[in-house]
C-alpha cells in the first residue's frame, strides 16, 4: 500500500510537471487554449466524503455500501473518516456542523479513499472482464497472450478513466499525460505484464479521482 501511495504521489507530481513543463520528446501544447481567467471570487466547495463516494459509486458502477471499507469492515465515510471528510455526527459525537477548515488528515483520507476505490474497481475488472469499467483488457492480453499495450488501448483506457470519474472527455494533453505515465509505471518491469497494466490503471484512476476537479465542485 505504501508503495502504491508513493507511486501515486509520483504520478501526481509527474502529471503536474507535464502540465507545466512538457518533457522533451513529448508533444508540445504551448499553443493550447490561453490561460484561463481567474475567478474574482472563487467559491470552490469540498464535496465531502459522502458525496464524493456517491459520485464514485455511480460513475464506477460500484455499490455505495461496498465501494470503500477500511479493514474490509468499516465504511470509509460513515465509520472511518466521517468527520475529517466533512461529515457530522451530532447525537453521539456532538459534532453538529462540518469542521470549518479541512483537518490535517483530510487530504490523507481523500487519498486513501481514492486508492481504495480505484484498487477495488480494477480488482473487479480483472475478476469479471465482461463487466469491466476501467481495466478493459481488450487487445491487451484478453486471450491470455499479453501484448505490449498499444497507443489505442492506452488512449481508450485514459478516456474511460476521465469519462467515468469526471464525466467528460479528456483533453489531448490529459490523454498524453496519462499514456506517457505508463513508461514510468513499467520501469524495470515487463512492459506487457497485465499486473503492470493494472497498476497503471489503478494509479491513473487515483490521480484523476484525487484531482481538484473530482474532490471539489
Amino acid at each position, binding site marked *: 500500500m505504501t508503495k502504491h501511495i508513493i507511486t501515486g504521489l509520483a504520478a501526481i507530481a509527474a502529471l503536474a510537471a507535464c502540465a507545466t513543463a512538457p518533457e522533451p520528446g513529448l508533444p508540445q501544447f504551448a499553443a493550447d*487554449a*490561453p490561460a*484561463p*481567467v*481567474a*475567478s*474574482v*471570487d*472563487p*467559491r470552490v*466547495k469540498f*464535496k465531502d466524503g*459522502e*458525496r464524493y463516494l*456517491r*459520485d464514485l459509486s*455511480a*460513475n464506477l458502477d460500484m455499490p455505495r455500501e461496498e465501494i470503500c471499507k477500511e479493514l474490509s469492515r468499516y465504511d470509509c465515510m460513515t465509520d472511518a473518516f466521517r468527520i475529517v471528510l466533512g461529515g*457530522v455526527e*451530532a*447525537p*453521539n459525537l*456532538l459534532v*453538529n*456542523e462540518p469542521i470549518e477548515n479541512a483537518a490535517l488528515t483530510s487530504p490523507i483520507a481523500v487519498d486513501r479513499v481514492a486508492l481504495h476505490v480505484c484498487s477495488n474497481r480494477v480488482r473487479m475488472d480483472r475478476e469479471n472482464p465482461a463487466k469491466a469499467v476501467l481495466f478493459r483488457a481488450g487487445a491487451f492480453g484478453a486471450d491470455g497472450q499479453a501484448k505490449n499495450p498499444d497507443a489505442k488501448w492506452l488512449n481508450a483506457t485514459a478516456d474511460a478513466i476521465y*469519462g467515468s470519474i469526471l*464525466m*467528460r472527455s479528456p483533453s489531448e494533453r490529459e490523454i498524453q499525460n496519462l499514456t506517457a505515465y505508463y513508461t514510468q509505471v513499467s520501469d524495470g518491469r515487463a512492459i506487457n505484464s497485465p499486473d503492470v497494466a493494472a497498476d497503471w490503471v489503478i494509479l491513473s484512476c487515483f490521480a484523476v479521482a484525487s484531482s481538484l476537479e473530482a474532490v471539489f*465542485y
Partner: protein
Amino acid sequence: MKRIHNSKGAIIAFGLSVAALGFAAIAPGAPVIQSAYAKPPAPMAFCHAYPEAKACNTGFAECVACHTTPPARNAFGMQISEKLAPGVARPLSDEDFLKYLPAALKAVEDLDADSDGFSNIVEIMAGTQTADANSVPRALACAADDASRAADAQWNVCSFDAAYAFRKVHMDFCGRSPTRADMDAFRAITDEKAKLARISEALDQCLDSPYWLGPNGAVWNIANAKIRPAHAVKSGENPGPVPLGDYDDDYNLFTWANSDDHDVRDLLLAQYFVKRTGPVTLEQISEEELAKRPRGTAQPVPKEKRVGMISTRWFGAVNTMFTSIPRTTAAQAYRSYLGFDIARMQGLNTVPHEPKDYDIKGVGAPECAVCHATLDPLSYPFTRYNGISGGYSYNDDRLKDYVRVDGPRVAEAPAGGMIIGQEVADLLEWGKVAANSDAFAMKVTYDYWKLLIGREPDVNDQAEYTRMWRGLKSATTYNYRVEKMLHDLVLTNAYGRP
C-alpha cells in the same frame, strides 16, 4: 449583515464571562447596578446615526464595531473615544454617552482607523470592518477583456454560469453530480431562459430527495446546532440509556417548516407536532394520537401554550433542565432562531433596570449585567415551562417550587419579558415577535446561504443576501416559504458564478 465569528475573541469573551460568573458566585446578593465600563446602548445608537449601514440590518450593530473584547476598544473605538465629549469627566453616564456619540462619530468619519486606504465612513457604508485592514470594499467585476474570454471558456468565472449552477444544484440538493447524459443535455440547451427553467426543474426534483429531506439529510443537519441531540438521553425509537425526550419530534417539525409550501415561522409558532411517514414524507400528528403516546415520548405542554421548537419536551430537557430562570434556554433560542449569540455579545439590547436577579445568581454585577440586562428579560417568558424537573409541562406557578433553592424573590419573576426592544406578555408573544423579526428572516436565510454558498455572506454578497431575506419576509415574494427562496438563491451570482 456580516457576522463576526472570531473564535479567539469568543474564547476570551467566554473566559471573561466565566470569570465574571465566578465572581458573582462568591458574592451572592451583589447590588444590581448598571455597568460603568461598557455601553450597551451604543450598538443601537450607532445605528441611529447610520441606519443605512450594512452592519445595522438588524437595528443594532455588533459590539466589535468599536471593541475588540468589550470594554477594550479597537482602533476605530479609540478614535471615537478621543472625540467623545473631550474634557467631560469619566465615566460618562449613558445619557451623556448617547448625547455626545453622534458628534464623535461624525468627527471620525473621514479618518482611516485601520490605515487600509478607505475612510471610516466608506467602510461603514460598505459594510467592511473599520478596524481591520484586511477587510476592505472591493469590486468583483471582471475587466472587459477577461469577461469576453471567460464567456468562451469551460467555466464563465465572470458571471452566472448556468451549467455550473446546474451541476451545483445536483450536488447540493441531491447529493450527487448530474449524469453525463444530463450534463450533455443541459449544455445542448441554447436558450438562456430554458436553461434557468431546467435548473429550477432539477431543484424541484432534488428538494424531494432523501439527501435533502431525509433523516440525517441536509435540512436535518441544519437543525443539529439548534436541537443539539444527545443519544444518551434520547427516548422513543432507538433510545439511549437514560431516555428523557425524543428529539425526532424536533427534527420532524424543523424539516416540515422548512419544506414544501410550509411557513418557516412555524419553527416559533407551531402548536402541532409532525411525524415521519416515509423517507421524505411527513404529516401532522393529531392531538388524539399525541395524547396516546407513552410517558417517555409525551409532549406535556398543552396545545395552546406550545411555541414551536422552543417549547418541546426535548428543548426543555436539554436547556432548561432544573433551572428556575432558564437563561440557557432563552440564549439557545435567541442564538438558534435569531442568530444572536449572547456569549459573543451579539444582539445586546439593554432593558432599563435589568437584570433584577430574582434567583440571586449575582448577575447584577457590572461584568455580568452587560449581557444579563438583555438576557434576563429574554428568559422570563420561559419560566413557566418546565424542564426535567416538573416533567416538561407548563405551569403558571412553576417558580414557587424554586423558592427553597433560589430564594423567595424567584417567585416574583414575571411571565412577560422583552425581546429585540419589544415587550411580550408570555412565550407565545415572544415567539410571534421573534418569528416576524428581520433577524429571524436573516437567520433562516443565513443558514441556507452558509450551506449552499459555502461561507458566510460577505460585504460583496449584501445585495443578493438582503434580497433573499427581505423576500422571505415579503408576502408577495417568498412569503416565508423556504423552497421558493431557494429557487431564487440558486440563480444568484453568489451561487452560480464559479
